[in-house]
């Protein structure tokens, strides 16, 4: 897990179509984004446990090494299927067992969860903001 300060997490989120925080896009989901750190990005590397293609949010569950010989499950919030599909996502974008890298805007309180910013898929393709 690596942590990065971002000048504009908002920009990355707007690009990837996750619509909670950004000011430029058609943003806002069914809850406030105040729980997320707007100035920090966390990069995770792990294995997809599940991808919930659901309303009001899709969720990416990723098993990440915890540094103690085990793993920790992270819950990564994405947009709703209708919005994501219009920006190129599909219900099969992530599959269980895929080895991926994913960048999130972490929860401020340290919970193993965050808002999706970008990912490098199992195919090597990137989605969203992963520079």
């Amino acid at each position, binding site marked *: 897990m690596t942590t990065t300060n971002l000048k504009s997490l908002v920009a990355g989120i707007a690009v990837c179509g996750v619509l909670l925080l950004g000011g430029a896009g058609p943003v806002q989901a069914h809850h406030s984004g105040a729980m997320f750190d707007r100035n920090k990005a966390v990069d995770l590397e792990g294995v997809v446990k599940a991808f919930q293609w659901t*309303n*009001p949010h899709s969720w990416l569950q990723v098993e990440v090494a915890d540094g103690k010989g085990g793993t920790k499950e992270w819950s990564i919030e994405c947009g709703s299927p209708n919005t994501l599909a219009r920006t190129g996502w599909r219900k099969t974008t992530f599959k269980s067992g895929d080895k991926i890298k994913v960048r999130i805007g972490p929860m401020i309180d340290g919970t193993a969860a965050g808002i999706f910013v970008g990912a490098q898929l199992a195919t090597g393709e990137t989605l969203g903001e992963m520079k």
Partner: protein
Amino acid sequence: MTVKLKHWLLLTLSVACSAAQAQSLAGAGFNPGDYTGVWRMVGGTIFDRSTAEPANAAAGQPGARERPPYNAEWEKKYLARIELVKQDRLPDPISNCGTPIGFPRIFNAPDGYEFVVTPKQTWVLTENGPNALRIYTDGRKHLPDDFIWPTYTGDSVGSWQGDTLTFTTIGLRGEDGTIVDRTGIILSDAAHATTQIRKADAGTIEIKLSIEDPKAFTRPWLVTKRFTRIPGGDEIRIMDYACAENNRNPVAADGKTLTLDTQGKVIDAGR
């Protein structure tokens, strides 16, 4: 003249009379233009982008605000709500996946929109929610005082003048269960509005609102919203939103938004 020809003449006359009647009811020259397709709001869910502080603010961003023409009493209420946003405790009725988004927030929703325009009624349908605003243009008046009661979306009637629909909205709940956006803007139960909808160009719907609130405002609040067609082929259509389908962000009794795991267990640190 054959019976068949008489039948077609009568049918044609009937259709022509109905169209003329609809045009008359809808206003002088019902000429709305093309509203087909799926639309989305331009900009984020700051309701009045022209007065946003900071200018690129996002609704829900701690400290973000707009400048509705509040009097001192309601400015104080707004400032208290801005503080709640900073604590992530602003009560937002739609987070509970049950109540309508209401007026005027129905012009401030993310995701897709449909505008169903007919001479006698126009429906504004939001994918998010979903929600519906029904505007009657068949000549009827607002509901009478002894019949109407406060609702989230209110009662809207109006008429078409060429390419412009003008309608008024009354009967709103005010601060009882409705917010305008997540900076914390609210209206009183005395709020009412006059709204104009027109096609600014082939790909843009322009909506101008003049919101009056004798309890909360010192003058009418003028806000313009714009919508553009979502590009794409015939795969672009309104889909279920279904807020309660897999809501892993319920709101706790203290107003904090929680996060659940896939089994429904709260995973927020310290909870």
